[in-house]
């Protein structure tokens, strides 16, 4: 199939970017990223600069691939990352628009590559349980209800890709942050520090320049891992009860 691609090109973070047009002969067995690989090989053969994009595992788990495809982070297919998107969902003659995740807190590095290190700093602010190596008791000492463990797991499957931010008109990082807050707060091991954790993580989130949440829920719709906005509600509750009892932080 012959496709038209409109791809965002931007030399570096300070350069002004623009869309460039390309045409490519793809086949339906390819993945979307393999199609971009082919494009890049063609560009290199013409001694032109390939399109920079990030990727690593190519199976939907590392969270490295990003990009907005036809207006949707990770493309049109529900519950998938860009690397899991396949060309059989396109047909001959289609035009596809590809651009980077856009958010103030995710500055563009080059072309489709953005800097998502703000997420690391949110985790550093409190997204952990304070236990040193060797301090742990026997793993079966505290039984955890299966449903609780499953719910914590669901929140813990966030891959840190940032699609939620890219999807949100306010570029809010609430879904990402709340997933970590929930994962840890639901478990008995994480409960102890829950209050301080939520205060510190939210504070860092604001500091990074992410926007406010106004319940648009686009984040949930675009999240490749199905992280639920219930996590945001839980974080809001945690936050409220923590701020009432706290004179620290804030």
């Amino acid at each position, binding site marked *: 199939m012959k496709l038209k691609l409109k791809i965002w090109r931007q030399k*570096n973070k300070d350069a002004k970017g623009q869309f460039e047009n390309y045409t490519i002969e793809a*086949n*339906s*067995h390819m*993945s979307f990223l*393999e199609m971009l*690989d*082919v494009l890049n*090989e063609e560009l*290199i*053969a013409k001694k*032109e600069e*390939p399109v*920079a994009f*990030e990727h*690593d*595992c*190519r*199976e939907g*788990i*590392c*969270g*490295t691939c990003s990009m907005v495809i036809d207006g949707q982070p990770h493309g049109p297919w529900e519950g998938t990352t860009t690397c899991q998107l*396949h060309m059989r969902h396109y047909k001959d003659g289609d035009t596809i628009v590809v651009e980077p995740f856009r958010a103030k807190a995710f500055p563009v*590095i*080059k072309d489709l*590559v953005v800097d*998502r*290190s703000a*997420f*690391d700093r949110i*985790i*550093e*602010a409190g*997204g*952990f*349980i304070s*236990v*040193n*190596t*060797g301090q*742990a*008791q*026997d*793993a*079966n000492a505290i*039984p*955890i*209800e*299966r449903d609780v*463990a499953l719910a*914590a*797991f669901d929140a*813990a*499957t966030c*891959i*840190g890709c940032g699609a939620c931010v890219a999807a949100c008109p306010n570029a809010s990082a609430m879904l990402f942050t709340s997933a970590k807050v929930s*994962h840890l707060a639901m*478990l008995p*091991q994480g409960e102890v520090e829950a209050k301080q954790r939520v205060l510190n993580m939210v504070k860092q989130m604001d500091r990074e320049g992410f926007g406010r949440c106004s319940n648009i829920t686009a984040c949930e719709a675009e999240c490749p891992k199905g992280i639920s906005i219930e996590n945001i509600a839980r974080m809001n509750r945690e936050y409220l009860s923590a701020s009432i009892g706290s004179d620290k932080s804030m």
Partner: protein
Amino acid sequence: MKTNSKIPPGALAEKWTQYRGTMNLVAPNNKRRIDIIVVGTGLAGASAAATLGELGYNVKAFTFHDSPRRAHSIAAQGGINAAKNYQNDGDSVYRLFYDTIKGGDYRSREANVHRLAEVSVNIIDQAVAQGVPFAREYGGLLENRSFGGVQVSRTFYARGQTGQQLLLGAYQALARQIATGSVQMYNRHEMLDVVLVDGKARGIIARNLLTGELERHSAHCVVLATGGYGNVFYLSTNAMMCNVTAAWRTVRRGALMANPCFTQIHPTCIPVSGDYQSKLTLMSESLRNDGRVWVPKKLEDAKAIREGRKTALDIAEEDRDYYLERRYPAFGNLVPRDVASRAAKIVCDEGFGVNQSGLAVYMDFTSAIERYGKSEAHLKGLHDPDAATIRELGEKVIEAKYGNLFEMYEKITGQNPYKYPMMIYPAIHYTMGGIWVDYNLETNIPGLFALGECNFSDHGANRLGASALMQGLADGYFVIPYTIGQFLSGEIRTPKIDPTTAAFAEAEQNVRDRIEQLLSIKGNQSVESFHRRLGHIMWDYCGMSRSADGLQKARQMIRELREEFYKDLFVPGDNDEYNPELEKALRVADFLEMGELMIVDAFNRNESCGGHFREEYQTEDGEALRNDEEYTYVAAWEWQDLAKDPVLHKEELVFENVELKTRSYK
């Protein structure tokens, strides 16, 4: 002697405890004055950096990823082993030790493997305390499953995302140390050389991948946790950026590379679909519990399938060859990875392959669907259910067990595996070989340590499923924090290492020259095209089966390819910018040297063992033939220069606690 394993004295089961109790320690006030560089933040590196930071050392951690959370460890699916014996099914530290030694085809060190089995239990405790949400039973206790053909249930798992959850645990522990300032994190930094000062590892040269700037970082010692080199084959189940550069650069400075030819091929991966492909996807081993592997019995049927004139469903039961069940009646579809992979290659080489390229076999769930369907019907009190009902009930059971894998398969191939059997083929998955280390995980270069998949230490010639995660975390959380003290206790009076000395300048210049050289070739072929060609050579001659003739030929081919690379490579862009093509070029340049060493090693080892199958050394019915008389050793290679042959150092393996036996799955 370069390969002194430094195994401590004492009975096997007491070595580690005794050794730990008598080791040299570094006092807290001295720890604050000591700098440690950790390269790599996968399971091994993140757990090491976090723990060393907690202990009070000044740690600098490096990854070429944009965040430690993206390391290749994130992709591990199946689980992690530990000798907890929570299921009360007869597991023990000794049994895990024994299974690992035997599974490795008796080519690993007893003392290291026993220590691994001992600390395995602490890993699970630590992970749970960090909030890793392992699968649990209704009573709230941890659940286990059996994995990789062992007879006990010792595998802990978090759905199909065990690696992700364990890595997030380690990453969060690391984040906590970054926040306290005990670890300084350098994301998007790639180590391109190690710096030796008076023979000791004292620093690295790293390239800032955003700016291209070369940075000198100094420390009292250097810990590598940089993962495996499976991508030397181009196509593998490894993440795209996995590479050998960090390890190879230390080899170029005198570290020994051990057993590089020991690579693992996983039997159940989605087959290659076209030449644009750059990555293969693993289908979990657990599928072989219910999937029956077959190819058509008749060559004309296989041909008709390849040409699209027939499908699997057109082949009558009696015309199918369930070749694993035929060849290995005792283990059937559950034979270990190396055996299953080779059997698939043999039938495909004979012309029975079932996809367009002829390199695929079927994995069929029909029998399981029927079996489960019937038993479900029985449970529901349905008498004489029709075939459609049985199928429907059976499919539900399969969906509950493997739903996410079936979905993943369908996403990639566009075929419904409930209706048509899956197509699978073996692919490169893991590298048992790696940098040579002693019992302290220290290389032959003082002050240089290697952890996780990048060392060679625990898996011999074949790794068991769910044991790589265990090893990475054992090394990082529970071994290196102790053993590093053996070296550092002698360094407490060493002042901060000065990065302005000649050794640093020389190493930096060396990196600069390499980059300059690659950028200045300005030829016509892309990095990718060279990497792909290297992969073909490695796969054809140093993959699932190897022969002296083939290996000799391959060595010549690689040398020619390397020459062509330095004549006709084209790398777009410059050094002083974000330039993924340049990153790849540096990595492929090193793969082109590592590949040759793997071939030399495979040629040297005149036996078949584990993942290393030499065609000349097989039994009459095609099984691997080990040679314990001559090859019960670790082959540790010292690199000379490209014109000379590498030098072999042998570390003889001594087995005092287990008897060497032939593995048989008949």
